[in-house]
C-alpha cells in the first residue's frame, strides 16, 4: 500500500489511524480531504480560520495570488456540477495554480475507461492536486488510495461533500458568531443528500441539535444515528414542527425527478414542505436560511424567502471560494516529510516564529 492516511470509513484498505508523517501540517493531519466525519472540532476550526484571510482576498481589487504558481489542480467531475467546479476553479486560479478540467459528458468514461485508468492517466500529466466528484460513494477514497497527490472529495454519491459542509459552517459562524449548540433544521431529501451528511458530521462535533424533516421516504429513522455519538437528531414529518426553535434552516435542493405520482407529487411536496414566508413566522426571528444550490424557486423554497434578509445563499457562494482556497492552500503547501526547515537560517520571517513557539 502506497499511502498511510485515511479519511474514510467506507474503505477497508487504508489504515484507520492517520499518521502525522503524511502531512507537513501539524494542525491538519491528513494528506487528502475526503470527508468531514474523521476530523476533530479543532481541525475544522483550524480550516475555517485559515479561510478568513481568503475572505479578505475576495474583497481585494487584485484577487490573484502567486502562492501556488506553477502548480496544477485537476478538476475531475465525473458527475455534473456547475457551481462546485467553478468554485474550485476560481479558488485554484486565485491562488495562482493552473487547472485541468475533466467533465463527464466530454470524457473518455463514455468510451468505457475505468475510473482508475482515468485517474492514473490524469495523474501521469503530473498535477499537484486531484479534486473529484463522482456519483459513487467512496469513489474519492478509492482514487486517493492509488494516487500520491492530495485528493479532494467534491461530492461522492450520497456519502459526503466536505467543502460544502465547511462553507456552510463558515457562513453560519460568521452570521451567528459561533457554531456551538445551535438548533439546525435540514429540510428535504435527507436520505440522498451528501450535503446533509457533511453538515451533520461537522456541526455535530460542535454540539448542534438536528431536526430532519421531509416526506417519510426521504427521512428514514436510521438517520437519527448518523452523527457523532450522542448527537441529538430527530426526524419529523411536519414542517411546522421542524421550524420551531430553529437557529439555522438548511433547505436542500429537491430532485424533481424523485417527485412523481403516486408516492408524492410535486404539488403535494410544495403544499406540505415548501419553505415560505408564512411558515418562516414559526422560526426564530433571526433564523438563518442556507441552500446549497441550485435553487428550484417555487418548489422547495419561495423566491421571497430565498432572497430575503434571513437568507445567506449568496454568502455561501462567496465563502465557497474562500474555503476552497484554504483547502488547496492547506493540502498543496508545506514541505513533504523529512525536509529540514532550512528557512530557519535564511529568512527573517521564520526565526522569530520558531523562537516563540507559544504564539
Amino acid at each position, binding site marked *: 500500500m502506497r499511502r498511510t492516511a485515511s479519511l474514510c470509513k467506507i474503505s477497508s484498505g487504508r489504515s484507520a489511524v492517520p499518521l502525522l508523517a503524511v502531512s507537513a501540517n501539524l494542525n491538519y493531519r491528513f494528506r487528502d480531504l475526503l470527508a468531514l466525519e474523521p476530523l476533530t472540532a479543532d481541525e475544522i476550526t483550524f480550516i475555517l480560520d485559515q479561510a478568513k*484571510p481568503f475572505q479578505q482576498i475576495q474583497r481585494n481589487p*487584485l484577487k490573484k495570488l502567486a502562492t501556488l504558481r506553477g502548480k496544477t489542480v485537476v478538476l475531475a467531475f465525473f458527475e455534473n456540477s456547475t457551481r462546485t467546479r467553478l468554485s474550485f476553479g476560481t479558488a485554484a486560479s486565485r491562488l495562482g495554480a493552473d487547472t485541468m478540467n475533466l467533465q463527464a459528458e466530454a470524457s473518455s468514461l463514455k468510451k468505457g475507461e475505468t475510473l482508475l485508468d482515468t485517474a492514473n492517466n490524469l495523474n501521469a500529466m503530473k498535477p499537484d492536486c486531484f479534486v473529484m466528484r463522482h456519483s459513487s460513494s467512496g469513489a474519492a477514497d478509492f482514487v486517493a488510495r492509488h494516487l500520491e497527490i492530495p485528493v479532494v472529495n467534491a461530492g461522492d454519491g450520497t456519502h459526503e461533500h466536505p467543502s460544502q459542509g465547511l462553507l456552510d459552517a463558515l457562513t453560519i459562524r460568521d452570521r451567528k458568531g459561533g457554531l456551538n449548540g445551535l438548533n439546525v433544521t435540514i429540510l428535504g431529501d435527507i436520505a440522498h443528500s451528501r450535503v446533509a451528511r457533511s453538515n451533520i458530521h461537522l456541526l455535530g462535533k460542535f454540539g448542534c441539535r438536528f431536526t430532519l424533516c421531509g416526506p417519510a421516504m426521504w427521512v428514514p429513522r436510521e438517520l437519527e444515528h448518523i452523527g457523532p455519538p450522542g448527537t441529538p437528531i430527530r426526524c419529523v414529518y411536519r414542517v411546522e414542527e421542524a421550524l420551531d426553535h430553529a437557529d439555522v434552516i438548511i433547505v436542500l435542493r429537491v430532485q424533481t425527478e424523485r417527485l412523481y405520482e403516486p408516492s408524492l407529487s410535486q404539488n403535494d411536496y410544495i403544499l406540505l414542505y415548501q419553505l415560505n414566508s408564512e411558515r418562516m413566522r414559526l422560526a426564530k426571528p433571526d433564523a438563518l436560511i442556507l441552500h446549497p444550490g441550485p435553487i428550484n424557486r417555487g418548489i422547495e423554497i419561495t423566491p421571497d424567502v430565498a432572497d430575503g434578509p434571513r437568507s445567506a445563499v449568496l454568502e455561501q457562494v462567496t465563502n465557497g471560494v474562500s474555503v476552497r482556497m484554504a483547502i488547496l492552500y492547506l493540502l498543496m503547501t*508545506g*514541505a513533504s516529510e523529512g525536509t529540514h526547515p532550512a528557512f530557519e*537560517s*535564511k*529568512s*527573517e520571517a521564520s526565526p*522569530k516564529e520558531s*523562537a516563540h513557539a507559544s504564539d
Partner: protein
Amino acid sequence: MRLIEKQQLMSAAEIDRTLQRLAHQIVEKSDGTRHLALIGIRRRGVPLAQRIARAMRGIDGVEVPVGTLDITLYRDDLSKVAPQAVLQSSHIAFPVDSLDLVLVDDVLYTGRTIRAAMNGLFDLGRPKRVSLCVLIDRGHREMPIEAQYVGRTIQTSTTEIIEVRLQEIDNEERVVLVDRVDS
C-alpha cells in the same frame, strides 16, 4: 544545537527612545502626516507600528491610520517550510491608493519579507510611495531592498538571531542577540 543569549542589544527605554526618534524622522521626511499610513508586518511589526503612530499623535496631534499585513501567502518558500505556515489575517481598513505608506517591521535581514509585503500591498491598490522603517537592520541582504528609517544597525553573523521581544507579544521588552551553538 542549542540557543544561547550572547548580549542584550536594547533595553525597554532604548526601544522607546528609538521609536520616538523614528516617528519624528518619518513625520519630518513626509512633510506632515496628512497622506501618511503605517503598515505593520505581522507579527512584531504590528505593535511597533501602533507605537510609532501613538508617538506621531504627540508630534502632530493627528491620528495616523495603522494597518496590519500578513505576508504568508506571498512568501517564496512555502513549498520548503515544514510544518506548514499558518495564515493570519491582514487588516487594512483604508484605501491605500495615493497614500504614503510606511512598512514597519522589527528586523531587516534578507529582505525577502519586505519583497513579500510589497507584493501584498500592491494587490490592495497603488500607493503613492512606500518606504520602510525597521527597529534593527542586521545586514545580509538577498534582495535590493533598503530601509529609509532604521532604529539601529547591528553587525551579525548568519548563525546569530536577533530577537525583538515586545510587551504586547512576549511579556518582556528588550532586544537580544542569540547564537546557535553545536552541543
